[in-house]
């Protein structure tokens, strides 16, 4: 049973939606802060657009969608024997 819960926890952590979502939210936060602090030179370089701010907000939104998706439809981990992998094999999001 402990092995089973361990496997479940590993599988949830390993869910790619969490990884992409987490990375994008983190990147988004970094860019948003950078965008707010951007000087005139950085804005002039990007055709007058606060591109760091825009991309930051967009990446937070995209990352949020992935995290929300993972929350709303969490992974179902069902036990399966390793040598007979069927359609209900564990370990990955559906």
């Amino acid at each position, binding site marked *: 049973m402990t092995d089973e819960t361990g496997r479940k926890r590993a599988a949830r952590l390993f869910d790619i939606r969490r990884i992409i979502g987490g990375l994008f939210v*983190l990147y988004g936060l970094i860019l948003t802060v950078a965008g707010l602090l951007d000087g005139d030179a950085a804005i002039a370089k990007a055709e007058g657009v606060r591109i760091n701010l*825009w991309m930051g907000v967009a990446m937070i939104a995209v990352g949020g969608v992935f995290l929300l998706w993972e929350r709303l439809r969490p992974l179902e981990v069902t036990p399966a024997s390793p040598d007979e992998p069927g359609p209900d094999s564990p*370990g990955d999001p559906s």
Partner: protein
Amino acid sequence: MPPLLTVAAPDLRLDVNLLDYAVLALYFVTVLGIGLAARRAVKTSLDFFLSGRSLPAWITGLAFLSANLGATEILGMAANGAQYGIATVHYYWIGAVPAMVFLGIVMMPFYYRSKVHSVPDFLRRRFNGQTQLLNAITFAMAQVLIAGINLYALSLVMGALLGWPLLLSIVVSAAIVLAYVVLGGLSSAIYNEVMQFFVILAGLIPVTVLGLMKVGGWSGLTERVKQSALGDPGLHTWANTGSADANPLGAHWIGIVLGLGFVLSFGYWTTNFAEVQRGLSARNTNAARLTPIVAAYPKLFIPVVTVIPGLVALVLFSDLGKPDGPQYNYAIPLLMGDLLPNGVLGIAVTGLLASFMAGMAANISGFNTVFTYDIWKSHVKKDRPDGYYLNLGRWATVGGVVLGIGTALIAAGFSNIMNYLQALFSFFNAPLFATFIVGLFWRRMTAWAGFWGLLSGTVVAFASYIGFKAGLIDFGTELNATFWGAGLAFGVDVVVSVVVTLFTTPKPESELRGLVYGLSDASLADDALSGDKAWYRSPVVLGIGALALAGLLYLPFL
């Protein structure tokens, strides 16, 4: 298929600062974390090589796309955009999507339901062990060479953009790829491909948007392309292809349809194991069939972020592609340096480096599977316990990466030879595709016909290209040499297969069940999941949709 990538290293130093390096570091920490997490999930050799056949279609589909969307592809297609104009979309809309749909609808059921581990393994079942070994060896060699070329191109870009020395960037990138593929096998390669896909988009979208703003939007771009060296033909796809001289691509429409659209692209997309492997890791037949079709939809729109930046670079940098200016391949890096401030710049650099590594990881994970299953397990040491092959797979990965470093160093010394090899591999799959298509639809085709057909087709592909390079045969341009070489190899393979079949005895029908068209294997259970019946999970509906969309997209650019 990935275009040629030749890069010399002019001074393109990007103005990266600590912020950009932080973004880059964060990515690689995540990548290694995935490898470590995957290590805990990998228990058997099936987990390692085929992700335990457990992935849903959207993951395998994006991985299928990303295995091809390496940086050579991105930089190369932007370069083609600058050099040939809008006609570059042929590489996507006729040169990729139809073959991807064909793979999903027609061929994937044979691959997946026969439970083979690899493309050579399918050849063993359909033909014999010799055919398997022949294909396995050529494939393994090609993968190591291409991995080395990827590594070399990566180190050139890192050198040009970040100022890293060649050897340091080769070793550092090889070490990162090695670490995550050894730890997690195909799972971690696939997860990184999916992640890389989103990061590279996050880098390319701002380049495209800001680039378009700088040249005055789409109308400003077309106006300025007309006045450029490319001129009006650079804005059309099919117009002017009635003769090969009248369009920038230098190709006749028959060559585009048959050479690019049929022989080259079907060869590459339907038999290249580095691609097919992504489908084999899907959780059931339907997900496997959907894999290339799910990939086809984003593939249709990739030109927006490659061809448009190429055209923008053409009008912004007047010396691009000129003898003393930067090469076409630097179109995207030039725009990145010109338009992106620190922060987003870090994302774009990360996406570019990640896609180089994803390309190399795809080569390495294809190599270790074929080496372990199709060379070692099938022909050297059979019947060992599963753990033996899992270990061997990890060592094969180490071996593949070390050989790749070797190839990269050779490439650094003899870059021309590498360019030739790369061109050669671009039509290497044509004879393999011929063998497949005859073998699938003609059940009488014999085991030895498979072997001799493949061997003679491969030899012809080599011979025609070497003949062209040595000046013995004149095909005109490099592009035409590729079209003709592939066509010849395909034709010779078919003829030899038919002739040998007539003189040898066919395999009994019982051995061909599930491997040829019209002989299904009734003993296989239906593995459909609930919900697979829905129209939005139907490979045929979605496949036809992708084809129709490709046709519609051509309309504004005829």
